[in-house]
């Protein structure tokens, strides 16, 4: 909401500097986006009168103007503007002057002719294209003839003003008006609000002889008023009015339109004028449209209507889309002599839906959507009549047609002084609160702890005590409220999940892996890119977004791998050489929907790296280390050959306590290639929700051993197919109760080893907690182990 401070001063005294005005308005709840000082952005622009125009001797498209700028000598300026004429009063920027876009004007020669400055357009003087009158939009600004040549333009046009852009919150549509803002300012600065003059001095005839109004849908149109103005003389409105419209962000059009816009900005009440000659029978009927009806709006667009849309009809046809835009068939033209002035109240939701369906948002529809006080209609209509009379552009016909079946009455509320203090943490008196309410044009009467407040009907946001608490707080000043810390409540607790997440993140960071975060929505084809099988329904039951940003963001992810591959791919393309990353994020699945319609959400952890950060066993080490730290020690890694995402010989399912908790492996080369990564990528996706469920970090310590251990190494030759896990199982079984641990320390293939075989070496540690072991018994067990390996997996003992 753009507010010219000069205009605001018509309704309320503002006797503080603009900066202080702004600060205090902000603290009382009228937040400010920007403050623009008009006329501050240029220098050395004066009023000039074109005395003579001669053709340019060397250029067809240029002319040479001699201007009276209030000095003895005429000023010569060369221009190419098509709209200049002898006798025109125009803005002239002198040599040395500065334009808002930073251009500095210097004496120059244009095709051999001296030019001492430049004639200015409104745009060159800093006005936005959308507020410049169409007459002068494409040329030099033609000013009023009565301006004195040589005057500084700021003084001549009264440009020195501050335009404040207020951010109006949706609960305060009453502030989308000069009077609404003046009401706020009056309360803040302790002044009285001065309402504008609304009664015409001379009225002729009776409006009932011209127009009748019938509301057929009172739920969609609570009130409709009509006034009539005859002997209308359409022409430009005076500069003071144009300036206010422009500073308020609206384009001046002609006096009738400008006055209705001016009053809309004053009161927040949209108004519309119909040419009475195109309103059949002088009848105004408010009713919904017919399905499939076609109608051409003022902007020249033909639109298709439906039966939900409220329209203004005359005796036979539609003439306006209620609250949105008038029809081309009843618009004001230069020949219009009598107009019907509509000042009506339409249902905001209805206007919003119509405007949305038509794809047509207007200043009026925006205001109706937010809600307007129905009591404003007649006052705003009267104000228009007053201005029409004042500007001499028509004769006001007496009376008003006012269809207002259910009058909107003020809603009184009893508020408690103690309750408001209880909410705010203050100790304000009832008198102080009463004073605040009164300053905001409310009636307020205190009776001990209770204040009966009656707000003006424009304040549709005041419904409960808390609303009044806010009024008190913002007028008293949020900055003056005390600061305390809330007492009570239990000691703060972390969720178990977050505790585990933080632990996991710390471990993964310590491994040198960077944490990433990616979007939760992906393309449904993302899983194809990582070779997810057609039968893999778990990853294909997408939760779909009805209105996605695009196909590539249209479903919720069911796994983290595609996003991880994308991130690795981008990093690879960027030339980042050794990259290791992880993400903990939610995945979504449509196969389980709860009673509220929500799909299952689970968390996954994806770890991946490329570029010499390690191999399969590095990855496995990361996983083992993590699971061990989270208290899940007994984990089985089962070879998995059936997942096309991974290298079939380098992939394992991870199983803990009989539950699949993830899959890891080397990404299949065709997948990495698809992502443009020319290196081995190692990746695992863990079902983090399952891991969090299994996490058990409770434990008790084991006493330190009192007796020494005996370490015996063993090396055997076995077939390639024999797994380490199998051998460890045999060793553990045959090693008996005195075998404390077994650990692999070497796998060797190559020289002296037969093709298809490998040499595997383990270190076995024997210990009895209660005594020192005898050499013979260790040897006995060791032989037992060897025999087991020989028998169960065809191992052949190698000499150490």
């Amino acid at each position: 909401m753009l507010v010219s401070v000069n205009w605001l001063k018509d309704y309320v005294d503002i006797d503080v500097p603009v900066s202080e005005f702004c600060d205090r308005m902000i603290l009382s709840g009228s937040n400010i986006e920007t403050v623009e000082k008009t006329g501050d952005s240029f220098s050395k622009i004066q009023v000039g009168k074109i005395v003579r125009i001669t053709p340019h001797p060397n250029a067809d498209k240029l002319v040479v103007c001699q201007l009276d700028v209030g000095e003895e000598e005429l000023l010569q300026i060369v221009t190419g503007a098509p709209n200049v004429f002898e006798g025109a009063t125009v803005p002239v920027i002198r040599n040395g002057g500065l334009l808002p876009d930073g251009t500095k004007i210097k004496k120059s020669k244009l095709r051999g002719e001296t030019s001492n400055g430049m004639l200015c357009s409104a745009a060159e003087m800093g006005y936005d294209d959308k507020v410049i009158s169409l007459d002068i939009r494409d040329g030099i600004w033609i000013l009023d003839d009565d301006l004195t040549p040589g005057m500084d333009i700021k003084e001549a046009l009264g440009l020195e003003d501050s335009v404040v852009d207020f951010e109006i919150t949706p609960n305060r549509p009453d502030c989308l008006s000069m009077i609404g803002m003046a009401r706020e300012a009056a309360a803040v600065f302790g002044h009285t609000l001065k309402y504008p003059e609304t009664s015409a001095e001379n009225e002729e005839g009776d409006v009932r002889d011209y127009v009748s109004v019938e509301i057929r849908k009172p739920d969609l149109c609570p009130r409709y008023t009509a006034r009539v103005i005859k002997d209308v003389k359409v022409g430009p409105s005076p500069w003071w009015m144009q300036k206010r419209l422009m500073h308020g962000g609206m384009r001046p059009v002609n006096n009738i339109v400008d006055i209705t816009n001016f009053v809309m900005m004053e009161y927040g009440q949209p108004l519309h004028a119909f040419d009475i000659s195109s309103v059949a029978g002088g009848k105004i009927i408010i009713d919904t449209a017919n399905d499939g009806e076609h109608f051409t709006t003022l902007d020249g667009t033909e639109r298709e209507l439906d039966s939900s849309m409220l329209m203004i009809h005359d005796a036979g046809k539609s003439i306006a889309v209620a609250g949105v835009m008038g029809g081309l068939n009843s618009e004001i033209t230069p020949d219009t002599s009598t107009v019907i002035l509509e000042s009506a109240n339409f249902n905001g939701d209805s206007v919003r839906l119509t405007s949305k369906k038509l794809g047509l948002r207007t200043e009026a529809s925006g205001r109706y959507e937010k809600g307007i006080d129905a009591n404003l209609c007649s006052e705003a209509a009267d104000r228009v009549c007053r201005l029409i009379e004042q500007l001499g552009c028509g004769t006001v016909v007496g009376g008003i047609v006012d269809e207002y079946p259910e009058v909107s009455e003020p809603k009184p509320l009893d508020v408690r002084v103690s309750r408001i203090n209880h909410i705010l943490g203050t100790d304000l008196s009832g008198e102080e609160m009463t004073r605040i309410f009164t300053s905001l044009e409310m009636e307020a009467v205190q009776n001990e702890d209770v204040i009966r407040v009656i707000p003006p009907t424009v304040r549709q946001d005041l419904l409960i005590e808390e609303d009044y608490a806010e009024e008190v707080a913002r007028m008293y000043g949020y900055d003056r409220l005390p600061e305390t810390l809330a007492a009570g409540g239990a000691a703060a607790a972390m969720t178990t999940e977050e505790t585990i997440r933080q632990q996991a993140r710390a471990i993964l960071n310590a491994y040198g892996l960077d944490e990433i975060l990616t979007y939760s929505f992906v393309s449904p084809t993302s899983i194809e890119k990582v070779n997810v099988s057609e039968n893999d329904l778990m990853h294909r039951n997408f939760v779909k977004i009805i209105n996605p940003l695009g196909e590539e963001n249209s479903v919720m992810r069911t796994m983290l791998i595609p996003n991880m591959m994308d991130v690795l791919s981008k990093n690879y393309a960027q030339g980042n050489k050794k990259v290791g990353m992880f993400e903990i994020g939610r995945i979504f699945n449509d196969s389980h929907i709860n009673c509220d319609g929500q799909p299952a959400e689970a968390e996954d952890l994806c770890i991946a790296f490329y570029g010499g950060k390690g191999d399969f066993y590095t990855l496995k080490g990361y996983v083992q280390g993590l699971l061990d730290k989270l208290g899940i020690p007994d984990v089985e890694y089962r070879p998995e050959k059936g997942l096309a995402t991974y290298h079939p010989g380098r992939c394992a399912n991870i199983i803990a306590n009989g539950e699949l908790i993830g899959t890891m492996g080397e990404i299949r080369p065709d997948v990495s290639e698809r992502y443009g990564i020319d290196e081995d990528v190692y990746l695992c996706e863990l079902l983090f929700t399952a891991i969090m469920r299994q996490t058990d970090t409770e434990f008790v310590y084991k006493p330190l051993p009192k007796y020494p251990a005996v370490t015996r190494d063993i090396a055997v030759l076995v077939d390639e197919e024999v797994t380490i896990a199998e051998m460890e199982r045999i060793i553990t079984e045959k090693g008996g109760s005195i075998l404390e641990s077994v650990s692999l320390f070497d796998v060797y293939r190559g020289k002296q080893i037969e093709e298809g075989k490998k040499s595997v070496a383990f270190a076995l540690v024997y210990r009895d907690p209660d005594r020192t072991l005898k050499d013979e018994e260790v040897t006995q067990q060791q032989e037992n182990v060897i025999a087991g390996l020989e028998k169960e997996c065809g191992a052949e003992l190698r000499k150490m």
Partner: protein
Amino acid sequence: MILDELEAIRKDAEESFEKAGSTENVEELRIKYLGKKGALTKILRSMGKLSPEERKNVGQRANEIRNGIEKFIDEKTTELKKHQAAMKFRAEALDVTAPGRIPKLGAEHPVTKTIDEMTRIFMNMGFSLTEGPEVETVFMNFDALNAGPNHPSRDMTDTFYITDKTLLRTQTSPVQARTLLTKKPPLKIISPGRVYRCDTPDATHSPVFHQVEGLAVGEGITMADLKGTLSEFARQMFGPDTKTKFRPHHFPFTEPSAEVDVSCFKCGGEGCRVCKGSGWIEILGCGMVHPNVLKVGGIDTEKYTGFAFGIGVERIAMLKYEIDDIRLFYENDERFLKQFR
């Protein structure tokens, strides 16, 4: 004569030890003089032939000389060891200005890092962590939070819908509603999490971002408590001299409502690029929980009051680290991430 011999040995030993250049030399000399076949030992062995008187003199002298030689050995050994150590140190000297081998640590994501810090601050003020679903019901995301049926944020242009009853939550505030439905006051919770809005990504918009929600409900909780809590948060997050400014604002789920600015932590309020010259930076929205929201949880609004706030995590991180493009958080370029270790 024997005494002369002894004197010659002493002299010879003194000179030899003087010349010894290594601990090996010293050992050789020890053997030469004091060894089983050493010069002094030989003389001592031959003393049997002497008269008792001579034996006494010679013995005394020989002992003196042996003590002398032992002293030479000690002194020389010490000196040589010192020298050897010095040599060794010289040879092993390192260029300490050359770079060390830093263990490669991974980086925390700046969003997580910021959430962790905010969580820590609020937990220290007694707020417990709570989590909620990202696919929310329309009821929890809007109705329960007093957003009217025509509230513009419900539009398909603003909110991602899954069905007509479910959506991707647009704010962490539904956790407030869920908490009020399941827990009894007094309660103080915070809830960090992901939220979604229909915004095409650009430098300042992201369709996915994070918020931290806060809620306190109890007997006698006031707006002054809200101010105190958030001012304390601002001081801990941005520095002890940080000032806060509470401006009246409007949210459907709070009344009275406020937006909070902090004094610019870059320029301290003088006005700079970070605060766009104003000296203040808006960081969050908050207010006293609207009675309609408390009623959803069946809470007696006469007895209990509460406050709530919502803070945009990326916004805080962007301000704190002077990051000028929100997309960087989701591009995950290692060169960006590695800066947040």
